[in-house]
């Protein structure tokens, strides 16, 4: 059925695949080294300033016996996981995030920052390259663009129902992604990931002198830090949903396709 005179169309282009895996590595390192940085001061504020005497909208509390997370006025005990946990030697540690979630696994703000900024560069250059490349090779226009008929409420509703019934399918032969997939990929690639770069830069005192408007957009340095953290949290959520849909849609086949390119199918169902 798929036989055309040309070579078989790949499901994922080389740029998409390369970027996908480099980006996955960068995000993992940025997440884990970011948590090391967070451990240095596990409190989040709104506005320009914020230090220990000021009100934090989110904070991790820790002692030798108890760990908890406070959000506004709500406290959730997290002993064993956040704020109070045992390291590989069985010693109790009172840093916010546990060693298995941070890079390096021991507390070193200086090393965490080195990892973070080195991978921040690779991540940012990779993202910029992928965005530009995807516009020129029409990946965005062909695969991610949402056409009129897809925006129809009845179409979106049907897709939501299909997802709820755990039926994941390519949308007919033309599209490799369905509308919910398109929306989440666009949201992550064009909004969430750039937001991480801009909030990251907005926390830099040198950038604040160079581009004061950047920090202002986010309502101050501490707000930028909070938004950076929330963005991290949304990326982790995206990753979890990404893994669930991957599992349901056939993890090996899909992962293999992201490595070798796979092929574009004509028929709808798995």
């Amino acid at each position, binding site marked *: 059925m798929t036989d055309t005179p040309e070579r078989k169309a790949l499901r994922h282009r080389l740029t998409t695949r390369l970027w996908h895996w480099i980006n996955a590595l960068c995000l993992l390192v940025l997440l884990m080294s970011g948590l090391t940085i967070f451990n*240095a*001061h596990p409190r989040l504020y709104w506005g320009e300033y*914020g230090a*220990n005497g000021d009100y934090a909208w989110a904070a991790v509390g820790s002692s030798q016996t108890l760990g908890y997370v406070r959000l506004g006025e709500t406290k959730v005990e997290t002993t064993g996981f956040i704020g109070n946990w045992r390291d590989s030697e069985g010693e109790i540690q009172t840093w916010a995030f546990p060693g*298995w979630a941070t*890079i390096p696994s021991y507390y*070193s703000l200086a090393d965490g920052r080195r990892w973070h*900024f080195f991978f921040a560069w690779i991540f940012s250059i990779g993202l910029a390259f992928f965005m530009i490349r995807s516009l020129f090779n029409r990946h965005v226009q062909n695969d991610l663009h949402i056409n009129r008929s897809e925006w129809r409420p009845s179409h979106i509703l049907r897709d939501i129902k299909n997802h709820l019934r755990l039926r994941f399918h390519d949308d007919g032969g033309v599209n490799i992604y369905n509308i919910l997939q398109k929306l989440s990929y666009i949201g992550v690639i064009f909004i969430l990931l750039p937001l991480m770069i801009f909030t990251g830069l907005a926390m830099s*005192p040198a950038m604040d002198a160079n581009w004061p408007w950047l920090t202002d957009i986010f309502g101050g340095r501490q707000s930028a830090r909070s938004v950076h953290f929330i963005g991290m949290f949304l990326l982790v959520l995206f990753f979890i949903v990404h893994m669930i849909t991957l599992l349901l849609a056939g993890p090996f086949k899909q992962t*293999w396709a992201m490595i070798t390119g796979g092929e574009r199918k004509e028929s709808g169902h798995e």
Partner: protein
Amino acid sequence: MNNLLTRRKLITASAIGAGSLLSGCDSLSRSPAFQNILGSAENANFLVQRALGDRLELASEYSIKDLSPKFRANGTRDPGTADYTASAAQGFADWQLRLTGLFGKPQNFSLAALLSMPQRTQITRHDCVEGWSAIGQWTGVPLKLLLDLAQLQDKAKFLVFHCADRLGGRPYYESIDLLDAFHPQTIMAHRLNGEAVPIENGAPLRLRVERQLGYKHAKYVTGIEAVATLDNIGSGKGGYWEDVANYEWYAGI
């Protein structure tokens, strides 16, 4: 394509990957060569951040209503040495700021002499490497005035700030390059929020170098040494935290 083989490969690869990632990152973090690779991002940060702005671009300044209710202190909160405590007891009347090294006219300034010079007052945001920020109003002598009086020589490339406090037995020090040294907001501050700088915030004199993180803002400053290279100061990395814990010399982010 052999499905079984690929499956097994995938599973093993991801298991090895996850396991070795954690321990791998730790040993990489401890390897000097890898540290240098990671540290190369510092050079990129330095070059790009310096290139992006007018080199004398000012850090944001705020108004009185933006002040932090309390300006948090960090690091040494009291040098506690006999000399320092004695000097503090007399309001630092005997405090001397010594300009040494590559100056045409090396000289000392007493606190009174500094107070009689032209002053700059600025309300700025102090960003700590740990992540918190505090807004405070600082008054002090623009560093440029001191450098001009002491006739900084052309050979000088860096200024080293020597401090009265010790951390873990080592004297605290910091250094900046001349671009920051001559920046209009770079001052030797002696007042915070309209009062003499409190001991925990660096009395009687602290450097303000507004476009960098807090650890660059040396407290309890006793001397400014002009040098051509940082190699012979401390362990050669340009500052206390740079020497003991790999913090970046350029703290613009």
